[in-house]
């Protein structure tokens, strides 16, 4: 549905996107994850032809995206960055503009409002909507013409927790029932953890990993978080006596032991026998968020 080859965008000296190779399959929800400034929005703009790549290629639904490509967009719905609408026009009128420009039927406006829970605000001016409802209006705009592919940049922006769950369900339903493919960006892994089928992690314009969500879960680490007096001596002791190797000295004091997460009692005995004060020994399963932060070069 989407593929990119060596997709690159420079702004002068700044390398916003660097040699990105993406592959999004039909009927999946692909979460494009990265911290703020990682290159997510620039990538999405290139997928939509809003920004021309410095080099590389974008193919969407079998069409090479270039300035002249228009027909393909009858099958693509999108939302880029901040939600935007004509403030003097009502919700219904804003959607009617989109309907006319995408060639959708008259009934599409009502259906899109129903889907996003906007029917009660149909005659309110867009300028008077809350941030959350503006986001809903933008999502309704993206869905209005029943596209085969949805490209959504941070779709949960501005939505309250209930709204996020609602949109999550809606996207899942569109994928399961209508075979829609969703490419969505996010900077919060937890936001897509219950939704995505596959994940691409982008950092400083480069794709670090592209993997199935189950695979991602398997890659998260388990470790023992240990609070102990004399951590350096304790680390040496665990290496010598128990043959543990993957020990990380924490800056705030204490240790993390990655290759002995199932050897808690043994470790406790060894440390206490050596006369060390053991203040904490907690088995930890790294969550996805920590994994994501670790992958993108942050502190886990």
């Amino acid at each position: 549905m989407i593929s990119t080859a060596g997709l690159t965008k420079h702004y002068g000296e700044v390398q916003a996107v660097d040699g990105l190779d993406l592959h999004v399959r039909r009927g999946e929800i692909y979460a494009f994850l990265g911290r703020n400034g990682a290159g997510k929005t620039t990538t999405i703009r290139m997928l939509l032809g809003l920004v021309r790549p410095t080099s590389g290629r974008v193919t969407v639904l079998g069409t090479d995206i270039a300035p002249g490509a228009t027909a393909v967009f009858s099958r693509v719905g999108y939302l880029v960055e901040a939600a935007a609408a004509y403030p003097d026009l009502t919700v219904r009128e804003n959607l009617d503009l989109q309907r006319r420009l995408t060639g959708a039927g008259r009934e599409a406006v009502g259906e899109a409002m129903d889907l996003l829970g906007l029917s009660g605000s149909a005659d309110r001016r867009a300028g008077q909507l809350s941030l959350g409802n503006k986001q809903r209006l933008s999502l309704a705009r993206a869905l209005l013409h029943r596209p085969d592919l949805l490209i959504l940049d941070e779709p949960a922006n501005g939505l309250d927790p209930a709204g996020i769950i609602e949109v999550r369900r809606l996207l899942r339903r569109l994928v399961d029932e209508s075979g829609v493919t969703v490419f969505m960006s996010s900077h919060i892994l937890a936001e897509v953890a219950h939704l995505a089928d596959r994940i691409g992690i982008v950092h400083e314009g480069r794709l670090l990993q592209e993997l199935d969500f189950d695979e991602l879960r398997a890659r998260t680490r388990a470790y023992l978080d240990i609070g102990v007096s004399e951590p350096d001596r304790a680390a040496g002791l665990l290496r010598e006596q128990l043959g543990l190797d993957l020990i990380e000295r924490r800056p705030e004091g204490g240790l993390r032991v990655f290759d002995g997460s199932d050897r808690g009692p043994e470790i406790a005995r060894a440390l206490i026998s050596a006369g060390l004060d053991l203040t904490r020994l907690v088995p930890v399963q790294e969550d996805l968020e920590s994994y994501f932060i670790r992958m993108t070069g942050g502190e886990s």
Partner: protein
Amino acid sequence: MLGQVIATEFLKLRRAKITWLTALGIAIGPLFGGLFMWILQEPGRAERLGLIGQKAQFLGQAADWPTYFALLAQMTGIVSVVLFSLVTAYVFGREYSDGTAKNMLALPVTRAWFPVAKLLVVLVWCGLLTVVIITVGFLVGAALKLPGFSVTLAAASVGEILLVALLGYLLMPVVAWIAALGRGYLAPLGFALLTLLLGMGLGATGWGKWFPWSIVPLFAGIAGPRTETLASGSLVVLALTCAAGVAATIWLFTYADNNQ
């Protein structure tokens, strides 16, 4: 599809306060013209009113329809630079100020239709504003019971006002380009003021007939002695300016990066 794009561009103006504000703004021109006529009708009033009276006496020799029509043409010359630019800045700049430009660029619609449709909207809007000048002008002139009216004079004067407005409109594609390039209202409005000043200044020199923003004021009689007929060179300059503006705006919509 161009028809749908044009329809949506008109729909975007629904409830926009600026449509009424520009209509009110433009009505001030003929009303001021009427004020000058009213003062000129009684020179004693002009003296009592000080500077306004002196300016009014300077502008027109007599309080009659020929003088008033000439004033209306002059007003149109200024208005076509200032208010038409405001209209163009709004129609193009709002897409960037409201953040909606990005919503237009990945649709099953040729991107060039958007600037074309917008320029058409600007043409119709500016045409209606010119109709307001003419209509208010006739009402004010009739209310003041100005002498010297004839159908021939009225037809010629209306034709002249429409021509001044049309020539002013030819400069708008460049304003549209500036709005798209500057991504908002400020740049085109600043550009309009700058060109108004430059146009008036250069109009007083021999270069006026070659500088696009002097040609309209010269023809309208507000930058030096009035040019009764347009030199063919001036027409070519205006046509080229218009064509370059249209081409540059279409190019921007089609090829420029949108990082909004």
